[in-house]
């Protein structure tokens, strides 16, 4: 049993962290100005699009865990990037047999359209109307998917919506008629990308809250010395660890075609959603009055957490899927 990260994965995290740091502050800027892809996206798209893409799909045999590590790092930094949506779109297509070259060398930027109005989970078949499509402005193509197939399209009737997280804009669109390609484990893979980003969001919120708890003084002590403050953050730590372990393990299970991989993806998405929203809310709480101002950053984590929690199937839907599959497996 060698359930440890490789040196390569540690290096990926370090490199991506440095890239994300150069976009610091941009996330907040989209509260006042329309979103556009940040400058860091050029590097991310050209250098990291092959992460998590197997050789059979035109990749360089990088493991899905590599991609999880990169995306988690972007989540921590709350990067306003389109790369995560692009990576999830690529993952939807990994088993389709289509030529992914343009997306993998970064010359084309993709995004994905999975969720449908009125549904709370993965659509069983690819419907016409899609919602919660992230970072559509400036994208070269959209990967539309449902349980029965996946399709690379130029969308019709695009309508930009008001996103709770302005640094992760959302659109509705219509999928034009056409032939679908095989989906394989595409939905599972793409959903793990969102889970990994939420694991990062949870860690970022915990780090911000921890920093505040170590420095803010009340009653003559730093507030982190009060158990009422410390224990809610400790709970957030435990949840975030659980979510990250499940996400990494699910990525391994999906890649190695393990029998319970589908259930593990659902567990990862449900746990990551819970961890991210919980950590962001605790971050607001620990910041006290400052936490409920626009000026402080905690609400930025909550925005990203909520938007990711809803997409690619809500946490509650994934949790019920876990329950149903677990019960079916025991019979």
């Amino acid at each position, binding site marked *: 049993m060698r359930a440890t990260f490789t040196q390569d994965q540690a290096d990926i995290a370090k490199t991506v962290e440095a890239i994300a740091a150069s976009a610091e502050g941009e996330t907040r800027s989209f509260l006042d100005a329309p979103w556009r892809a940040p400058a860091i996206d050029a590097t991310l798209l050209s250098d990291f699009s092959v992460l998590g893409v197997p050789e059979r799909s035109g990749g360089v045999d990088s493991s899905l865990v590599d991609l999880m590590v990169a995306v988690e790092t972007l989540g921590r930094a709350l990067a306003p990037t389109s790369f995560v949506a692009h990576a999830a779109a690529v993952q939807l297509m990994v088993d389709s047999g289509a030529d992914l070259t343009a997306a993998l060398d970064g010359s084309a930027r993709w995004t994905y359209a999975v969720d449908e109005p009125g549904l709370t989970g993965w659509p069983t078949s690819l419907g016409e109307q899609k919602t919660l499509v992230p970072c559509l402005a400036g994208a070269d193509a959209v990967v539309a998917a449902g349980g029965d197939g996946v399709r690379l399209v130029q969308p019709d009737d695009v309508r930009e919506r008001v996103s709770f997280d302005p640094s992760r804009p959302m659109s509705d669109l219509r999928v034009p008629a056409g032939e679908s390609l095989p989906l394989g484990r595409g939905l599972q893979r793409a959903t793990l990308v969102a889970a990994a980003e939420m694991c990062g969001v949870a860690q970022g919120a915990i780090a911000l809250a921890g920093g505040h708890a170590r420095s803010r003084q009340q009653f003559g002590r730093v507030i982190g010395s009060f158990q009422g403050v410390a224990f809610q953050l*400790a709970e957030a730590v435990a949840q975030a660890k659980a979510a990250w372990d499940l996400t990494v393990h699910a990525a391994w299970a999906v890649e190695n075609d393990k029998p319970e991989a589908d259930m593990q993806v659902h567990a990862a998405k449900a746990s990551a959603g819970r961890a991210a929203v919980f950590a962001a809310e605790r971050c607001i709480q620990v910041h006290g009055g400052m936490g409920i101002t626009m000026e402080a950053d905690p609400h930025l984590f909550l925005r990203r957490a909520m938007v990711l929690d809803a997409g690619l199937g809500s946490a509650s839907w994934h949790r019920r899927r876990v*329950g149903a599959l677990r019960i079916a497996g025991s019979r």
Partner: protein
Amino acid sequence: MDFEDSADELRFRAEAATWIAEAMTDIPDQEPLPQAEREEWSRLWQDRLSAGGWVGLSWPAEVGGRGMDALSQAIFNEECAKAGAPYPLNGVGMMLAGPTILTHGTEEQKARYLPPILDGQEYWCQGFSEPGSGSDLASLRTSAKKVDGGWIVNGSKIWTSNAHHATKCMLLVRTDAEAGKHAGISYLLADMDKFKVSSLVMINGDTEFNEMFLDDVFVADEDVLGGVGNGWRVALTTLAFERGSMALNLWVWAREAVDRIIEIATETGAIEDPAVIDQIGALHCDAEAVRVGSMRMVGETRAGAAPGPETSALKSLWAGVVQNANRLAVQLDGTSGVLLDTEGAAARMRRYLRARAHTIEGGTEEVQKSILAERVLDLPRSR
């Protein structure tokens, strides 16, 4: 990142599972048995482990062990848990006392104490907690006064599992009242024949643990483990072995708790209720997180890292799953948490009550959270 057993691990796991299955053919499901019967099976299981050469797996060959690594022991324990094997009656000796003596003992101490553990002839218990020293273990007050050739011990210990079967005790005492809180502690290997042991009744009716009274108990100089005044360091070793021995067990117990709730909900028909499906989903997520987290912990440990404070998150998560599953089991219908006249209902309630201990024993939930706050979040000590 690889969650698969290596070829060697697979081979060992298969060997262990085969032996366990054979050794268990005449052993009934332990779950519904009264405590006295369970303890008889535990004694028998201990004897079979000794006879089969399954004690001291990770001890070096020169002291009679099998010279394997700690993971092999964890895998063996995991297979026992999966098979529902009885808890070996000298688990404390095999998993805690033996390894601690191996780490800190003199050659004479190893020669004296290890063989009877391997043979299952001497049972041990852990005399750490005191009525006034629970979570704050280092405040312990049981005193040892220097006399010619040894120490005279006075005081009392509490929550001591298996003291009613043990003849030997890992005993923490204060040998220097003037020294600092930790520096005044020594670790003794004490004979229990002068201890007064009285059992405590747990809220589920079992008498697993005890209170012990020590009145002028003599312990010889050669039975101080790790040197006078070094007891705290030796005790931390014991606690680390305690965590390690359960490295791959906790997840099995978490999974079983979820299995049981599915079984019960299927019987009662509650399994169709979307709210119950939702709760089973949530329980399974956390149970899986315990399993994966345990595998990662074992991986990190093998890569040379000491188990980090994240193990506190695992303990906390595990306790939550088992407690919540067992609560759900007695709340699935309107009466099973109230009317105990069937064997099944009584057993369910016993499990629910036993699970309340999980956030208290082995470091309370509050202690686990403090560890996370201080060592992961770098927050100041709150006590």
